[in-house]
């Protein structure tokens, strides 16, 4: 009971993280601003929008993925969602050549990739859940193994690729928050909005899902339907973030763990927005610090992955990996 006094209200945490996110966004737009505002708005604005979309997509997809898997160290990338993306890119460069791959409309490419990723996750899910054992852990294991397969296939194709084309491919695959593809922003924003709308409709079930399959069914949630739908939405969100900046492995884990750690309640009404705000603050704030303070430009993803990896190891060692 003495714990009661120590607990901070979840709304305070939410407010604080929202302020942090807002401050980092304002800082990104204004610090070192020279020249006309119309140029700045369009130049920095697109970059900011891209980063906010990525932060949102990664935070939401990771938190929800952890909720449906009932596991705190799994993220969509760990079951091979973005290995799939890497393989698709590699196959495209391999068969179309660097020039051919470059000439494909990125929006078309995004739609095809999203469709393939959604299709694959559905297939995986259906195949596993129609059988006798309906285990999410089996799905995870198959995902991990398929992820390994995709990675080996990619690296095999990359090895027999023309060196020049390999350089082009590597450029596409390396996560970069600087070279956000502006052509994709529109369609990515629309996809994210659509996903958000469906998530909004499903949101009352999130907390119940965290009780596990049997308790959810006992409380009247159509577990299989909701989880399938959520996996599809997660696949779309992962596509959005990988298409915009490339694969990032540990960022989602970092923000989801921080959000769950900081928020004194397990309620998704707080955890989800806090995770999004922390993601925005980390991504945009980190970019500001690297660009303005240290004036070197390319390593934000490395820094974030470094800290994300540390959190991952910390969680493993602490044994919350049940």
């Amino acid at each position: 009971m003495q714990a009661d006094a120590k607990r901070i209200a979840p709304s305070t945490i939410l407010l604080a993280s929202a302020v942090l996110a807002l401050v980092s966004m304002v800082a990104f737009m204004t610090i070192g601003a020279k020249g006309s505002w119309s140029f700045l708005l369009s130049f920095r604005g697109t970059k900011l929008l891209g980063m906010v979309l990525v932060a949102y997509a990664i935070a939401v997809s990771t938190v929800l993925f952890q909720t449906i898997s009932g596991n705190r160290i799994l993220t969509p990338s760990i079951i091979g969602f973005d290995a799939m993306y890497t393989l698709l890119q590699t196959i495209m460069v391999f068969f179309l050549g660097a020039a051919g791959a470059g000439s494909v409309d990125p929006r078309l490419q995004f739609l095809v990739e999203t469709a393939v990723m959604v299709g694959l996750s559905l297939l995986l899910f259906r195949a596993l859940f129609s059988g006798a054992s309906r285990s999410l852990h089996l799905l995870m294991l198959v995902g991990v193994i398929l992820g390994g397969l995709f990675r080996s296939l990619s690296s095999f194709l990359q090895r027999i690729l023309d060196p020049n084309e390999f350089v082009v491919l590597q450029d596409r695959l390396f996560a970069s928050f600087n070279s956000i593809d502006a052509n994709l922003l529109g369609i990515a924003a629309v996809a994210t909005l659509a996903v958000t709308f469906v998530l909004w409709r499903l949101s009352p079930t999130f907390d119940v899902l965290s009780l596990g399959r049997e308790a959810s069914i006992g409380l009247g949630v159509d577990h299989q339907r909701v989880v399938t739908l959520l996996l599809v939405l997660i696949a779309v969100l992962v596509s959005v973030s990988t298409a915009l900046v490339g694969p990032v492995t540990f960022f989602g884990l970092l923000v989801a763990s921080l959000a769950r750690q900081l928020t004194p309640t397990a309620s998704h009404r707080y955890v989800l927005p806090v995770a999004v705000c922390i993601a925005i603050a980390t991504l945009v704030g980190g970019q500001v610090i690297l660009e303005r303070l240290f004036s070197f430009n390319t390593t934000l993803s490395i820094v974030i992955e470094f800290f994300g990896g540390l959190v991952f190891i910390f969680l493993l060692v602490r044994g919350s990996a049940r």
Partner: protein
Amino acid sequence: MIEIHEVTKSYGGNAVVDRVSLTLPAGGLTSIIGPNGAGKSTLLSIVSRLMPMDTGKVLVDGLDVSRTAGDVLARRLSIMRQDNHITARLSVRDLVAFGRYPYSKGRLTAADAEHIERSIAYLGLEPYQNRFLDELSGGQRQRAFIAMVLCQDTDYMLFDEPLNNLDIKHAVETMKLLRRLADDFDKTVVVVLHDINFASAYSDRIVAMQAGRLAFEGSPEDMIVPSRLQAIFDVDCRVHAVGETRLVNYFE
């Protein structure tokens, strides 16, 4: 009334529940007993639609459990399982509040708050209501889960081995509580039990299963007799009448 018609469930050609037909009338406390692997828990999971059946049909108040919408059924029937492993960090109060989900879909009304309050009070959980589940003892946790079921306020309440891992005091308290649910609240309580003496002392009806089949059913007077127990459990025993309760001595 729960009507179970010819329900079969098998794993790899091995029938765990084998053509079981059973009718449980509304009201009272029914215990399901039987040796390990008799299919008790599986039957309970099928009735509560946690597990699909291969063939057969289960009706709860005339509602077919495999076709009725999940939330409609969740207002009629609740289940408490033996393994309640939850990764989310929940307080007792949060957990109990989930019992109102079938009614309010997460937006708690004043009436819901009253239900939550009453369930917490009924199980004497007020002192712990803001503690997290992982800060509780086994007995307190068990009570928190029972409070959630109580809060769901369904006519039918199923409990899968609720006495597992409880000491004698908590086991007796839990059984008395389930008894009160049947007596004071007019609930239909179905419990899977391992201890025959608990079944004998607290049940209105006892259903015995063996190797996936329904072996016997009847009142404690009919069921707690050496010949039947011998047939069900394959153990020699004596039955002593102590007051109105029949106690089984299977130690000799």
